[in-house]
């Protein structure tokens, strides 16, 4: 399947919208012509406002992601390796994990006020749990044979962690990374819409309040493009890093 074919559908749909809206001559406060959306996007790019709010959103997401993913992986390693630690923490985890991260926004505002801290802390909470659970189960799924190899080769506990455990779970960690980056983006934009006056979410609110459907739709499409770019980049990286793991053709036998 050639890659450009995937672009065919959105381009055709946008062209049809443009044609339909122009032919029917619809006047609307909620819809905008694709060409006007493109114009709004172009202006927002040129005057720097779109890039500035993008930087704010991505920085908040990255900070929160770093804390949530890092902490979750660390906790998952401990809980995966120690059954008693897992039992000790299980009730606490099962009670805290289902709390919707956006329901923490009022609490985070009380603690941090507006700004990066409250936004990143909410993202950290949202990304911590999936990172923990995926790491914990990845550690438990490690082939026991590899751990026996570590034992009979007389690797120290530190060497076993560094040379066996972490490389063995790395592909699962990458899946966790892709999953939680998506979550981080959702949560940052949500926090910006609901509470925090910065970033792309806030731009959406401003566009709504100033009756600019073209700018709002441009921002929405921009967010979609950012998500696509992130996941495309991560998938490419994943292919590079783990290509020798499975399904790699045998070059030679004998």
């Amino acid at each position, binding site marked *: 399947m050639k890659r450009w074919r995937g672009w065919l559908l959105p381009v055709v749909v946008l062209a049809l919208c443009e044609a339909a809206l122009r032919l029917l001559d619809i006047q609307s406060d909620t819809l905008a012509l694709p060409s006007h959306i493109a114009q709004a996007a172009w202006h927002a790019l040129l005057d720097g406002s779109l890039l500035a709010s993008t930087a704010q959103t991505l920085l908040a997401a990255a900070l929160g992601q770093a804390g949530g993913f890092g902490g979750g992986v660390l906790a998952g390693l401990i809980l995966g390796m120690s059954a008693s630690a897992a039992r000790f923490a299980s009730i606490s985890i099962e009670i805290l994990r289902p709390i919707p991260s956006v329901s923490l926004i009022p609490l985070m505002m009380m603690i941090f006020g507006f700004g990066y801290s409250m936004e990143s802390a909410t993202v950290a909470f949202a990304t911590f749990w999936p990172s923990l659970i995926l790491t914990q189960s990845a550690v438990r799924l490690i*082939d026991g*044979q*590899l751990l*026996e*190899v570590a*034992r*009979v*080769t*007389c*690797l*120290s506990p530190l*060497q076993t962690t560094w*040379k*066996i455990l972490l*490389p*063995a779970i*790395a592909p699962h960690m990458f899946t966790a990374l892709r999953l939680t980056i998506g979550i981080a983006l959702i949560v940052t934009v949500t926090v910006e819409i609901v509470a925090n006056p910065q970033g792309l979410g806030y731009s959406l609110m401003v566009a709504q309040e100033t009756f600019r459907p073209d700018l709002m739709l441009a921002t929405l499409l921009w967010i979609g493009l950012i998500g696509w770019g992130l996941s495309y980049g991560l998938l490419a990286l994943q292919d590079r890093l*783990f290509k*020798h*793991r*499975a399904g*790699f053709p*045998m*070059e*030679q*036998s*004998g």
Partner: protein
Amino acid sequence: MTDRNAAIDFDGVSLQYGHRTILSDINLSISPGEFVCVIGASGCGKTSMLRLIAGLAAPTQGQVSVGQTPVRGPSRDVAVLFQDYGRALLPWRTVFGNVSLALEANRVPRAQRAERIEALLSMVGLDQHADKYPVQLSGGMQQRLQIARTLAQEPSILLMDEPFGALDAMTRQSLQDEILSIVAKRQVTVFFVTHDLEEALYLGDRVVTLYSGPGRIAKLIDVKLPKPRNQLTTRENPDFGPLRRELFTLMESLHQ
């Protein structure tokens, strides 16, 4: 019963898992440099004996010693070649890196590793494949790689758990000969688990046969075939046939 000079010594060893007795009253002394093959029905406790020597399991009764020291856990001096080579290699490391693991465990300085790894790889015929990953190798090559890694540990005792069981006949024969020549050069003591009685006779100085349920030693057979062994002449040796018959009859009786 204990032999003062034994490389491996089982002294009244029993092993139980819960209420199940796996091994019962095993007494066996293996001399340094000896190649001992263990044969018996599946589930008779062959692999459990190997795991006791490796320090991966502890006896319920009695004592297993390696070089006069009771086994308390895995030791650098005892290397294990696992049956399932596909799961015993690190898929994220190249051929070179997999051998390197044993040197890293022994804390060999980085500067000395490359030379030793290259020597080991050429010994097992993988020097042209150092940069490949295990999935890119055939089964025989993967097992050769595992052999190189165990040798990198510089063990005095090599434990092998049905290492060639999953390989085709030609590859198995060439690996049997490689192991024999490596063992002869390095003076290592070998404990070799197999279910193939011809393989046991071809490789071993002595063959240990086990009863099953629970595992007990049935008979020790000395194999006084001339060395070095050869795939054709050893099997054509007038003593080979009778030994094969004796072992075959014994195995038949054990199965009933």
